């Protein structure tokens, strides 16, 4: 039962990274693009607006129902970065909605765009920092520690910062590859393809940096990774896909399906690999072991009810989603 719930948690997390990540990334891409790209991006994103956050909400709900101790501890220690993520989400969602639905197009439009782009970048950086802080092992629940050691040091360090920038870069890469298929204008397509390549290289370099800095900060990430066969396989798959995606980016003919499939598998592989290395640890605690899925799970009665709700929910939601996407494809009469 626990494994099933953890799997659903993992899947919702990956879906958030893919769908929400593309949303965030599009905002980052937009900062480097012109007026025409802005129109394309707005059009591509409008139908899903903030609906993608439901995957994040799902993950949070699973966490606080199934593993309440982890949820409570995380939101105590990482209060500040979580708050920043929330502010980012609020700012982004409202700026985008207002830009899209505001009937007047004037000066206010420029402010919306600025806020939208800024928050699209900041939010994933803090998301990455939070993930970094969970595994780095500087989190402590010892109340006698100083404010700095308790609430700042766990996430404000080079490792977490690199994780943050890596996350933002990954999202930008994801979004630009996705956007290649969203335009019919050749000049625009080339710009997205170019941006895809740049961000791909940057993501690889940053990924490498994450390992190097982990080593420098005295974390055993590299060693755990080398001992985890699934982790190595996943990263290998991700790396192997790079030349293919590169190849399709150079094609003038529309290869949207291959590109999207490729990037989807790639991002999933990276996250799944990381999930494998992590499991079952949720938070590394300084000097006192770790919080895992096993030692923080809720009583069986709760997990059972949670699983029922999740399965019924998914049975209803997945066909719904498929129907929704098909509606978008239908041409308006």
């Amino acid at each position: 039962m626990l494994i099933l719930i953890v799997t659903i948690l993992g899947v919702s997390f990956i879906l958030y990274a893919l769908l929400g990540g593309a949303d965030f990334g599009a905002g980052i891409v937009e900062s480097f693009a012109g007026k025409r790209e802005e129109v394309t991006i707005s059009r591509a994103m409008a139908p899903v607006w903030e609906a993608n956050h439901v995957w994040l909400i799902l993950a949070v709900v699973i966490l606080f129902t199934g593993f309440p101790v982890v949820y409570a501890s995380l939101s105590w220690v990482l209060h500040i970065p979580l708050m920043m993520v929330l502010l980012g989400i609020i700012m982004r969602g409202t700026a985008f909605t207002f830009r899209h639905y505001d009937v007047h197009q004037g000066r206010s439009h420029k402010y919306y765009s600025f806020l939208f782009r800024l928050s699209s970048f900041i939010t994933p950086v803090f998301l990455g920092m939070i993930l970094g802080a969970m595994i780095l092992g500087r989190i402590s629940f010892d109340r006698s520690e100083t404010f700095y050691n308790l609430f700042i040091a766990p996430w404000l360090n080079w490792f977490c910062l690199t994780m943050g920038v890596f996350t933002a870069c990954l999202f930008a890469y994801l979004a630009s590859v996705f956007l290649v298929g969203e335009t019919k204008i050749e000049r625009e397509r080339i710009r997205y393809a170019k941006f895809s390549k740049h961000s791909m290289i940057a993501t690889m370099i940053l990924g490498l940096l994450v390992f190097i800095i982990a080593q420098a900060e005295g974390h055993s990430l590299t060693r755990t990774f080398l001992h985890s066969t699934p982790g190595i396989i996943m990263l290998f798959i991700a790396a192997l896909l790079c030349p293919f995606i590169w190849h399709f980016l150079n094609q003038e003919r529309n290869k949207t399906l291959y590109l999207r499939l490729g990037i989807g598998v790639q991002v999933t592989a990276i996250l799944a690999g990381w999930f494998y290395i992590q499991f079952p640890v949720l938070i590394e605690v300084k000097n006192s072991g770790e919080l895992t899925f096993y030692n923080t799970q809720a009583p069986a009665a709760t997990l059972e009810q949670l699983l029922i709700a999740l399965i019924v929910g998914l049975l209803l939601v997945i066909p719904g989603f498929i129907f929704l996407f098909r509606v978008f494809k239908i041409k308006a009469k």
Partner: protein
Amino acid sequence: MAVSLGFHIVFACMGMTMPVLMAFSEWRWLKTGKQVYLDITKAWSKGVAIFFAVGAVSGTVLSFELGLLWPEFMKHAGAIIGMPFSWEGTAFFIEAIALGVFLYGWNRLNKWIHWLSGILVSVSGILSGIFVVSANAWMNSPSGFDWVNGRAINIDPVKAMFNDAWLSQAIHMTLAAFVSTAFAVAGVHAFLLLKNRGRLFHQQAVKTALIFGSVAALLQPISGHFSAEGVAKRQPAKLAALEALYKTSKPADLVIGGLPNDKEERVNYAIHIPGALSFLAKGDFNAEVQGLDKVPKEDRPPVIITHISFQLMVLIGFFLALVSLLYLVFTIKWRYVLIKKWWLSVIALATPLGFLAVEAGWTVTETGRQPWIIYGIMRTKDAVSSMPGLRYSFLVVTVVYLLLSLIIFWLMRRQINTIHEFYPTAKTV
């Protein structure tokens, strides 16, 4: 937390009611083929899209804030009341999908299938509201676990969800959502009707909204009565606070209005109706009603704010019920009154009242439960985050929400101002 909930509750009410109004209006269009109903549905759906997106964002924030501000509460309560939250998540998910189909399905789907998606939005919207209220009801009437040595054991999430208070609270909240939203919508259109006399579009919009608003407003006092009876049984301290009953009395007077004085333990400037409280709470004019004197000092809720909010809610509730009654009478007998200037002014003035009552009612149930966060089990001060400097993040959230409210207000005004350009029926008299 209070600020974001107070903000979110408005969106939740809209999310519960607007889809029903839209589906009803679309149904009228499908039946009669009159353009005006279609225009109304479309104009409303634009507003709903804005509110829904902002509501989804503030809902995301809330799911985090539960932990950010109340880590101790969530540590213990998460496993017990996580279930209504997971069902709420599911219902909200379906609502989001169905709303997507509704907003983007115009001219793409069979008309009746499009209408069905609207119905689905309505049902899931109402359900998601009810699930959240059931979690709140559990805080008032905790059940489904045993509290032993500061820990919850023998957890039964199903029993926790269907606690004693959930049904009365769910009904009261759903009706409140309908009253507040419907009157707000009717009020805006009545206001526009005053500026642009005789426009068919606004007349029909007022009518559609008031059909739902008036029925709900007339049912609300009844549901309120049953809620109060439940409170009298389960939370005597809360009842005493909202009625400002300092001393246990037999029979107890109903205190209307007035300013409670905590020091002298009496209510100034109030009207007293002898025995009425005994009758309302226990069904007997001579029954004893427990006052605050039976409650230890440290377990008493703040009386002044609870009492005044309660009076405000009841006052508005009865006023809107009266307006609704008049509306029904006019509709049946004196239709010509419905387009009279004074009547439209009354409706226009009522625009914010419903939401004011919702906020007041929410204040009543929250402050009336104090000092407990889980009634009789956990105190609020033990649940709040122990992080130093918490007030700064509180301040930030408050400012952000205030700004958001201002921007939405401004944006809606711009939307409303363009109605007359977009919809032909909004111009015809």
